[in-house]
């Protein structure tokens, strides 16, 4: 137990591979049949705010996404917006997961489920480990585009105690019109949760909690279909999840 080869092989390699199998590979099995959606697939169904953004800022839009049709432009916006979201470390202060406890569901809506994350923009997933600001996974559409345009420039203007940084480089030189980066970030944030019915955060708006916690219904886009094969291997795990 004190020789190099034993320590190296057993502790260094075998224990690591064992743990990788237990906590890495086996948890992959229940979701192995879920299709990973590409950005282009998701861009087929842009949220209402995207169309609105296009109408609000026609020149900036033309400059940023000129020559692309609506879906191509939305795919491009998701890609750029996601890159900014990662590069600016938004995910270090905003989580993207709703837990089944801690009153998360009262605040942000039904708990997160795997289909939400099986797409190209969640490689790696942006779950986050800290919430200085609110959870964002279903945040899209809660605020208007105008609110976001004002907010990204100087967050305390619209929400005085906010500690979110300013992002003046999301704007043209006038400081009013979002540039390509700004449009893309707003498009990305407004897209989050567009696959679910909208909910509000305050305690006065928790009508959706009146019923029992039903399994979350995906409105659009449809979750990838592979139900037949999926049921068999996941059965024991699915049961455990519901507990």
């Amino acid at each position: 137990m004190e020789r190099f080869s034993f320590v190296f092989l057993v502790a260094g390699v075998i224990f690591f591979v064992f743990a990788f199998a237990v906590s890495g590979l086996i948890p992959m099995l229940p979701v192995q049949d879920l299709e990973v959606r590409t950005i282009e697939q998701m861009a087929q169904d842009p949220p209402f705010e995207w169309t609105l953004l296009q109408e609000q800022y026609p020149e900036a839009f033309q400059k940023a996404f000129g020559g692309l049709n609506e879906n191509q432009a939305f795919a491009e916006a998701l890609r750029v917006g996601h890159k900014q979201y990662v590069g600016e470390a938004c995910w270090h202060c905003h989580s993207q997961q709703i837990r089944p406890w801690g009153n998360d569901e009262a605040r942000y809506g039904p708990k997160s489920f795997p289909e939400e994350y099986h797409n190209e923009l969640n490689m790696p997933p942006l779950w986050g480990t800290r919430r200085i600001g609110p959870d964002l996974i279903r945040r899209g559409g809660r605020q208007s585009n105008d609110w976001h345009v004002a907010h990204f420039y100087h967050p305390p203007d619209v929400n005085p105690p906010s500690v979110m940084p300013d992002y003046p480089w999301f704007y043209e030189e006038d400081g009013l019109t979002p540039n390509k980066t700004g449009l893309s970030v707003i498009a990305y944030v407004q897209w989050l949760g567009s696959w679910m019915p909208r909910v509000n955060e305050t305690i006065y708006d928790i009508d959706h909690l009146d019923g029992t916690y039903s399994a979350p219904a995906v409105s659009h886009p449809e979750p990838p279909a592979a139900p037949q094969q999926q049921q068999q291997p996941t059965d024991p795990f699915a049961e455990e999840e519901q507990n």
Partner: protein
Amino acid sequence: MSSNSNIQEAGGGAAPAAEHVSPSENVIVKHHIVAAAFWLGVALLAGLFYSMQLLQHWPLPKWAVLSPGRIRMVHTNLIAFGFLTNAFLAMLYWTVPRLTGRAVLSRGLGWLILGAWNLIILGTWIGLHLGEAQAVEWGETPVWIDPLVVLGALLVWAQFYPSIFRAREKALYVSLWYFSAGLIWLGLTYIMGNFFPQYLVAGNAAGPLLGLYIHDLVGLFVTPMGWGMMYFFVPIILRRPIWSHALSLVGFWGLAFFYPLQGVHHFLGSPIPMFAQYSAVVSTIAIEIVVTTVVINFFMTWKGTEGYLKRSIPIRWFWLGTLNYFITCLQCAFQVTLTFQQVIHFTDWVVGHAHLVMFGVFSFWIFGMIEHLWPKLVGREWWSQSLRNWSFWLTAVGLSGMFLVLTAGGVAEGFMSLNLAPRETILEMLRPFWFTRTLTGVMIIFGVGCLFTNMAMTAIKSRMAHVDLDYEPYEQPEKEVRIGTI
């Protein structure tokens, strides 16, 4: 076992040193320590600036390259890859030849690793400022840096594994178990965390790997290096062997088995299947028992040497770091339960925990190592004894204050959040906590500044030559040192 151990065993039973540990390797050790100090300085300033953003007062110009979010990632990444890794490389160059009786593979490779590794960190620093981060927590190194880090790990393997493999004594000393496993774990962990979730799997299949990565970088790289360092330096300075060899064995093998199983506990409550979450919780509580054995082993080693706490500043750092380690791990065993998770997940409690373990434990141990090694590396006695004390007390009080204020703020935040208080109210409540945190951060920066000043002045100005009493007894070429069977 340990009952008949002698000092030579405890110190790793160094073989004749003249041919194995040459002054030029000490130069590499010195350069790694200087590099570590540089990156620590940058990372501490980054942390200070970011904490001021939380006070709604951003001190730097509002340029994209200096965006607070990017600065936050600079803070964490430079600590991991700049400060800790450089310091641990210095530690390996000092300890491995002495423990194995073999020189490292090549001196030229040493310079290559020094240059290449710091260029990688420079690239990471620039990449993060340019907004090129990768969405892997604590591995935000841009995707074009990732393959280079793996190459760097390969070079480190090539440098140290041959010495350990050809060690004069086949039954390795405790430190070498930790190094043998820790170096391979570093490579495997990095590959798992930075490549799998980025290119191979998405969403729920990738999430557990991110948790494993964050956790394994701490548990399977930083912790083994830290403990290997402690098992080497504490017996050397105290001139007495580790209390129990059996507990050393329990500690190492317990860590090796339970630590890699815990990663998922960073995402409790996420859509990861519950069996994986429960297994992470159980193994996290299990390792608390293992950790306790290691801590008992060290405190029993210290028993009866309390005078060293007053006399020897390195021992003071090691002692306080070990105490903090116990507090951190005790915290782990509780905060990992789902009861605690409801309240403290997503709050400053976790931030306080992370600072306690990364700064209060491993950085403190590294400061202890620097306090011990620096006079030997520059051949002069410390320039100022009072600066040494100032650096200890400012840093220790600053870190303790930061831990307490973040933990208290985190608990308050967690309960307010649980009670559905509006986020604005929570932010207003946190303001005094965050203000105090910035003050404690300033204290830490002054403390570390005292250490750096003292290091520089020792190298430049100190007039008193250093007489090495720690290694002299073991490194006389003519003196045959028997390495006892362990």
